[in-house]
């Protein structure tokens, strides 16, 4: 019996270990080769770098205007996600608590649009941003993200509110205080778990989105991290060391974010998906 247990342990752990290797392999290869000279890389991609060539990094760091792009991305993600949460918490809660034809219609409208592919609204959307003078505006872009992101968030809030007993709200005296006050002092705290989830998924979405900033932001002073990385691909397309160091630089912030908020992220993702 013990022997059997040992064998099964071995099997399971080697399976997990292979999986982990496969997952980390591209990241590791990118990191290792980004520290070599181009000649070294071309002769042997599997060797450890003979000397750490950090100059690849200093060069791409400058070329990407790293801190500026990072700041832009943080600003963009921060504002977008705040708007999404605020707007959709208000709407999601009320939509769930109001039982009228109109509320069913509105909820249906939000949910239905979740299936519209981005490619079919791309150019009309671009025209809208132009008319509203949002071209090259990070704030304008975050409004666009809010518009695109609210439906999913409303769907999640709606589902979550369903699980909160209405008595909690009623006992707080919904009739006495104005609704907006109830909302911020009573409801928002109750929604905290799902808010964390929505916050995380949307930060990741905005952070990693590429096509939308590509068409809306053309001024390189407003470039996000991915846009700056992308311009480098064009400039150094034959120099893998430059490309790989840029990839690593672009990945570092999310990896740090992940390392710090790992628990919340993993918990949030799971709960969000299951409750939604």
């Amino acid at each position, binding site marked *: 019996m013990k022997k059997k247990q040992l064998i099964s342990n071995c099997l399971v752990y080697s399976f997990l270990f292979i999986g982990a290797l496969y997952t980390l392999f591209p*990241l590791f290869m990118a990191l290792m080769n980004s520290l070599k000279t181009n000649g070294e890389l071309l002769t042997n991609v599997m060797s450890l770098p003979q000397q750490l060539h950090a100059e690849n990094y200093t060069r791409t760091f400058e070329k990407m205007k790293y801190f500026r792009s990072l700041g832009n991305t943080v600003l963009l993600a921060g504002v977008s996600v705040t708007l999404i949460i605020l707007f959709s918490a208000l709407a999601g809660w009320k939509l769930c608590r109001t039982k009228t034809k109109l*509320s069913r219609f509105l909820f249906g409208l939000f949910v239905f649009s979740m299936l519209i592919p981005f490619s079919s*609204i791309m*150019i009309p959307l671009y025209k809208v941003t132009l008319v509203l003078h949002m071209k090259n505006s990070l704030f304008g872009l975050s409004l666009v993200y809010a518009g*695109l992101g609210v439906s999913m968030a409303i769907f999640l809030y709606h589902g979550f509110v369903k699980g909160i007993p209405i008595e909690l709200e009623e006992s707080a005296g*919904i009739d006495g205080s104005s609704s907006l006050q109830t909302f911020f002092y009573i409801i928002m705290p109750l929604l905290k778990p799902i808010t964390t989830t929505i916050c995380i998924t949307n930060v990741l979405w905005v952070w990693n989105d590429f096509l939308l900033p590509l068409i809306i932001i053309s001024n390189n002073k407003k470039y996000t991290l991915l846009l700056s990385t992308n311009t480098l691909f064009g400039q150094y397309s034959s120099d893998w060391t430059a490309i790989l160091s840029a990839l690593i630089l672009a990945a570092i912030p999310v*990896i740090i974010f*992940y390392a710090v908020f790992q628990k919340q992220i993993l918990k949030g*993702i799971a709960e969000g*998906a299951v409750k939604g």
Partner: protein
Amino acid sequence: MKNKKNPNRSLLIFCAPALLVYKIFKLYPAVSGIFYALTDWNGINKTYHFVGFSNFIEICGDSYFWNAMWFTLKYVLAIVVVANVVALLLAVAIESRPKGKGFFRTIFYMPNMISMVIGGYMWMFIFTKVLYYMADNWNMKFLDKSWIGNPKYSFVAIITVAAWGAVGYLMIIYMAALQGVPTELKAAASLDGANAWKIFWNVTFPLIGHAVTICVFWSLNSGFQVFDVIYALTGGGPGRATQSAAINIYEEAFKGNIRYGYATAKSMVLFLIVLLITMIQLRISKGKEEEL
């Protein structure tokens, strides 16, 4: 009291900000997209004509589009099966052992954090440099394949990378569901003499049905819109061999004849097909869940 009398009024007030941004940035572009689908707008000219349904009639005979659609279907099928099976296996494996839970979970979820544009380029490096190095120097001849160039193998490459990006997310959902399965049930079954496989299949699996629905729905829906992975790896090539529907639409709109109206019409067709398939899937899984 006021609120109870006019539920719709306060509803609209609460929904106003969300509705506003939603209408401007999603609904209006989508509706005007329908209008463009009925025109011959080519993306460069400032004028365009209303052409009725002729775009849609043309789509019916557009073999490139249907080939891309067929490729997308194959992709969706493969990614739904591969990603979900692997994710479930990983989740079960991690949950079944007391040690290393956090460690493995952290690692497997990591690719999900990184943009597919970046992940795609990293894999590109693997497929064009690293695998050939291994084939040439480590005598691993089975790696000496045209991973990007030969449609047979590039399909494998695309699934490999797409699964790399998706498995972590699905695994987390499965793990959460598995944690919700009461251990007493499993213990009881094992006392009855059931083996591990039977316990999983008869006790655990029915209880995580909801998670399976979510994961299949998610991978199905994102699978139909697949763009970045293929774009970063093969660009749809060689020729059109690995074009997904989304890439076909993108190319129609921005390359070659630049037919924006026609491309929009195609995206409407894609939308309808996705809608149909998701509805069928939801209906089936709902029925199944009720049965259980």
